[in-house]
């Protein structure tokens, strides 16, 4: 034989490739035709949403997908690449959201408030991430997870308690800088039949920041630093013995991931012109993020794009679909009850379970595998 000689030579990732695309994607190409196709489709659709669709629902769905791409990708850095299971990721998301919200609410609707709010939020996130990292990345993984769970819930309580600043349970609604308001017109005439107003400007702001942050994260996970993170995930003890300072690397990963999540939070707040505890801090969002990472494919980065797109679409349109289904099935006993739109959570839960089974390596893993065999 021998057994090893049968092993197909896998993708030779040590070969560096030239080309702009490859450089932008940090030589970490999708490596599957189907995957490339899906990714291109998603990105193009996101880029053209304001021109392709009318009405506010497609636009807000697309913006939400963008925000979640950043958030999920940042979590993938933590979970997929560093093997850190943290439940406190929404905390940073929330800090970003509140940074923008408080900035614009207290300092008035202009760009300097956005900048001040975001910078303050980033600073706070970095400090918190370092603190959590140094204090608790030394303890056992499962304890770390539980501690982050407690910290996250404490943060939510804190946000609710400091209602003078954060608006408590009610959250904060605020005005955006003029250029991002619906009333703002970039051109006096419609372009391709679409009036380019402040909402669309806001959307493109979200979109391009998303592209930038995503490419940056992709670069980081494919850097020597990213490789060390993977080594630490595999065998922390051995990585330390090889001369890598595990706590420092992990803390750095936490900080980077926290900063990206903060940016995502800021984007969401800008888009919604609102931030509140349920919007960015709740445990439910944490679970959504986990699910998106896993459905998309952990440790792949591209999984974030697919996971976020799929999940947000399902969340936005599942109820609509079920409503149609329920009406179609009217008359049959029990069935319409099960597909009644109010039972959408039931199906989402079932989807949860099924997707974890159907895509053990996530969708990206499945597509890449399909290409090999």
């Amino acid at each position: 034989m021998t057994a090893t000689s049968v092993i197909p030579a896998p993708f030779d990732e040590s070969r560096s490739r030239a080309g702009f695309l490859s450089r932008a994607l940090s030589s970490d190409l999708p490596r599957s035709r189907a995957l490339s196709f899906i990714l291109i489709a998603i990105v193009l659709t996101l880029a053209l949403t304001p021109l392709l669709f009318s009405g506010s629902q497609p636009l807000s769905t697309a913006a939400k997908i963008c925000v979640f791409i950043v958030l999920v990708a940042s979590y993938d850095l933590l979970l997929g690449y560093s093997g850190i299971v943290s439940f406190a990721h929404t905390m940073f998301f929330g800090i970003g959201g509140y940074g923008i919200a408080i900035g614009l609410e207290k300092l008035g609707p202009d760009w300097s408030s956005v900048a001040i709010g975001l910078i303050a939020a980033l600073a706070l996130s970095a400090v918190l991430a370092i603190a959590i990292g140094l204090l608790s990345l030394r303890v056992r993984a499962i304890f770390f997870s539980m501690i982050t769970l407690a910290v996250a819930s404490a943060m939510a309580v804190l946000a609710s308690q400091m209602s003078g600043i954060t608006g408590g349970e009610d959250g904060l609604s605020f005005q955006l800088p003029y250029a991002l308001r619906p009333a703002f017109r970039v051109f006096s005439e419609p372009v391709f039949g679409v009036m380019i107003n402040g909402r669309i400007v806001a959307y493109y702001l979200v979109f391009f920041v998303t592209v930038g942050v995503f490419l940056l994260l992709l670069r980081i996970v494919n850097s020597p630093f990213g490789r060390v993170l993977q080594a630490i995930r595999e065998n922390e003890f051995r990585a330390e013995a090889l001369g890598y300072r595990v706590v420092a690397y992990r803390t750095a990963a936490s900080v980077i991931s926290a900063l990206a999540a903060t940016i995502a939070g800021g984007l969401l707040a800008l888009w919604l012109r609102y931030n509140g505890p349920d919007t960015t801090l709740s445990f439910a969002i944490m679970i959504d993020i986990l699910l998106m990472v896993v459905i998309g494919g952990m440790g792949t980065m591209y999984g974030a794009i697919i996971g976020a797109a799929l999940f947000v679409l399902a969340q936005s349109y599942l109820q609509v679909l079920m409503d149609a289904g329920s009406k179609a099935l009217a008359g049959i006993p029990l069935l319409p009850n099960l597909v009644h739109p109010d039972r959408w959570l039931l199906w989402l839960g079932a989807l949860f379970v099924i997707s974890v089974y159907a895509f053990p390596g996530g969708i990206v893993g499945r597509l890449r595998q399909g290409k090999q065999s």
Partner: protein
Amino acid sequence: QDIKIALIAGKTGPLEAYAKQTEAGFMMGLEYLTKGTMTVGGRKISVIVKDDQLKADLAKTLLEQAYNDDKVDLAIGTTSSAAALAMLPVAEENGKVLIVEPAVADAITGEKWNRFIFRTARNSTQDAYGAAAAVPATGDVSIATLAQDYAFGKDGVAAVKTALAEIRPNAKVVFEEYAPQNATDFTASAQRIFDALKDKPGKKIINIIWAGQHPLPKIADLKPERFGIEIAPGGNILPAMQIYKNYPGMEGAVYYYYAFPKNPMNDWLVAEHQKRFNAPPDFFTAGGFAAASAALTAIEKAGGTDTEKLIKAMEGMSFETPKGTMTFRKEDHQALQAMYHFKVKADGKDANDLLDLVNTIPADKMPIPVRNKR
């Protein structure tokens, strides 16, 4: 052309039951008021129901969609106060009317209000005035409050204090206890309250302001009567008030109880609801009904759905509801309405036969302050 109305409610999530009641009440209201035709002024009414899952961001997005994509003429919503607050600016941006039901936060018709906002639901202050009105008007009364330790609880206590000072100067809040929002064990809180109240002269009352799982039985089990202390709970939906059964004679104030109002609208609602759902209408059923009535009355009065005409029609407008006549106050668009002072029945016939009416507290006995900066 159809009249389109959006109804946004937190239909899934922990308050599913509330939202169901609102929706049922709203639909029955339309039915009753259009005599089953579902048309007004010759135009058909179509209702678009949306589920915000109690999420403020979603509520906001859904309302945007309702105004922009579905082109509704006006909207009703929503269950959670936070979500309702997030919706307010959307109404203003789109220049469409929003009738808030059943969210209670004062700020909705207070500092966060804008001229497109009307509210058929009661606000927290009205609850507080109701509670105050249920306190005896003479003699020394010492009150301790028990509330959740966050903005809603704090505001509630503040409102009770204002209301007492306004209409029951003989009563004093002598102790304020705040427990964690999700507390389940009240031994420590009760102990502190008992210690604070037991040596006070006159009548001693614990006023509980609580959202969610009610601490009443836990406090009652610790036998406050040992110290001559009474408990005054607020009103709630029927299933939550079942536990009151164990404490006959207890007094408090409630926003709606099916057996209290005496008018044809309520009689029809009670009978029909019993027939269709095998249960009497509840708290939020009445609210949904009232919202329907407000909307229809306004459209008829304005002769259409033009927003400016609607606002003009609705300011100061009185409309009939299962609770009797309500009036949108001109200044802040809050519907002024009656509250009910109740006493728990000793021997109810069935599970929902719970309360006796002590007194109807008419709207004009409750001088609710105007808080919006108009």
